[in-house]
């Protein structure tokens, strides 16, 4: 699904990723953990194609295609989804409108017919019921005045609607209380499928109690310094990152 080789990236001329290697197979859930400033969010932005995140070396193959050559919207069309750490507010644009626009844009890339407003509303109603998203979230402007939990739920709703092949969750647990965390995790777990891969980026082990990963990687100084099974997360919880950051320095 995703093969990252020797990835180097800079932000504002500063090297953040320094030779990162990572391979995620179809249907796998991987977790990347690491301290602040280790390059976790940079990795998610590089994969989604944000401007200002410059790849200086290395390659990223996604479903056999060179991901780095694609525009952000093409990547989305090809099934790359990023659940944002800080979802963005778009005043005046009703959430429903935004969601339909996104779904139809991605459907166009996939060669599927676009949905008219009525057909879309049907799909949307089914999804919000499944994910227990409150109705009024659809009428309000995109993320405007949403609580932290509502914003994250809205991200998961978008993920469910866009049906991605590779979902990247960037610190989706931050700012969530335990109930919201469970709902979000349930949403992600429900989407686990043999043809879908998930990359969970997180500070804490807590989220991984609910979304159990196949592999756990420790990111420090822009490189994967250790990989292991789900038990690695538990070990980290006990020992902290200190040992790893020292090792990499």
């Amino acid at each position: 699904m995703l093969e990252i080789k020797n990835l180097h990236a800079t932000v504002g001329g500063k090297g953040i990723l320094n030779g990162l290697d990572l391979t995620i197979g179809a249907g796998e859930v991987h977790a990347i953990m690491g301290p602040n400033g280790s390059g976790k969010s940079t990795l998610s932005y590089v994969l989604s194609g944000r401007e200002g995140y410059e790849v200086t070396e290395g390659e990223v193959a996604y479903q056999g295609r060179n991901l780095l050559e694609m525009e952000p919207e093409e990547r989305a069309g090809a099934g790359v989804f990023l659940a944002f750490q800080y979802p963005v507010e778009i005043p005046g644009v009703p959430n429903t409108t935004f969601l339909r626009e996104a779904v139809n844009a991605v459907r166009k890339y996939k060669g599927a017919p676009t949905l008219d407003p009525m057909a879309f509303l049907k799909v949307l109603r089914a999804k919000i019921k499944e994910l227990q998203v409150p109705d009024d979230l659809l009428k309000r402007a995109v993320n405007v005045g949403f609580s932290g939990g509502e914003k994250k739920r809205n991200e998961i709703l978008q993920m469910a609607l866009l049906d991605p092949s590779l979902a990247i969750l960037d610190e989706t647990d931050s700012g969530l209380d335990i109930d919201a965390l469970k709902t979000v995790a349930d949403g992600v777990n429900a989407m686990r499928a043999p043809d879908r891969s998930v990359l969970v980026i997180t500070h804490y082990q807590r989220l991984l109690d609910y979304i159990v990963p196949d592999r756990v990687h420790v990111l420090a100084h822009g490189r994967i310094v250790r990989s292991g099974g789900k038990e690695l997360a538990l070990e980290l919880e006990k020992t902290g990152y200190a040992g790893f950051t020292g090792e990499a320095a």
Partner: protein
Amino acid sequence: MAANVETLEQVQAVTEKYKYGFVTDIETETAPKGLSEDIVRFISHKKNEPEWLLAWRLKAYRHWLTMPEPQWAHVDFPPLDYQDSYYYSAPKSKTDGPKSLEEVDPELLKTYEKLGIPLKEQEMLAGVAVDAVFDSVSVATTFKGKLEEQGIIFCPISEAVQNHPELVRQYLGSVVPAADNKHACLNSAVFTDGSFVYIPKGVRCPMELSTYFRINAANTGQFERTLIIADAGSYVSYLEGCTAPMRDEHQLHAAVVELVALDDAEIKYSTVQNWYPGDENGVGGIYNFVTKRGACRGHNSKISWTQVETGSAITWKYPSCILQGDNSVGEFYSVAITNNMQQADTGTKMIHLGKNTRSRIVSKGISAGRSQQTYRGLVKISPKAQGARNHTQCDSLLIGDLCGAHTVPYIECRNRGAVVEHEATTSKISEDQLFYCRQRGISQEDAVALVVNGFCREVLQQLPMEFAVEAQKLVGISLEGSVG
């Protein structure tokens, strides 16, 4: 909400840069180039006008000669050469003019079809009566019969001069005096046509009245004159929309719109303006110097202006309300978009004269490219306007770093009991918003259209449904190529 929910399909559906850039080949009967008393007499004669109107025109013309050009607006253009323009052109037709659509020049009808307003289908489709102004002569009016049943008069103003001279004489120039400003004064001298509306006492106009203006013959200045009178207890919603063919020469458009609302009457006036703005380098485009003003003469009357201004090389326009009657209400909702080299200086004046008069101003300005845009507004509370209230909301959105947005609000309050509020914001379209949209598969241009439509939503919601759709499309088209 419905109108906005539909935005995106509409925005996506339109991809052309300037869809309406074509010139129709119609023989025009044209007065010689230049401006003089003779030309004013020629126009008046062509229109078979009564003596008082000719005298009114001549007085305006003589005054115009003495007036200086307004210099205070934040717009920049070479001095106008008034002698290098034509002031009268009319599509050739039978001496009496067309009596029905069948008599209208087929070329003309084709033009309207290209614009997406097939007159023949209007009646069935939209329930909208169209008084179509092509160049200077109104050539077709539909729905007249239905309106006449209720005593509503909706016709070209030249026709009203013939058939309802007492109404025209009573109200013409009563809101915008001939000598008001240089452009309005020129209009008073040489106006060729426009719409006239009279809604009788207690009548609620059963349909949106709509006029599509269109400039066609090369070098013909357009001097539309519109007069709308809502008698006591009546209501009317009027729509004005414009498109224009592509060309190189600058064209002056100096229209005058006068609205009069008597006791308990309400007038809603909506404009979508998308005249040719010139090319990326500022060559060509329309000079849109318009004087629009409404008088709330009666108690409890209301006038509401809504405008979506995306076209023209230069816009100079301040739709205003004179709140004379006690408890009268004035509203101004505006979206102005400038791109490339466009310049716009627009806003409103709310003149509070009566007791407990209220006004609301919502202005949304979007500047892109190297354009310059100014909101200029005046809120004036007279000593007698006890209990007057105004709220002004003025937001500017900048796209790119070469454009300019300026806000010039004047407030003159001479009554201690009045409440005047002004809020203003200036922001840039954010990279975060665009990236968020693109990560969801939405292209850069669609993302800009989406974010800007959101920014304007409060104003677009004020438009009647059929106009809201067109306006939302325009927002997308006008900003094409402004990012990335």
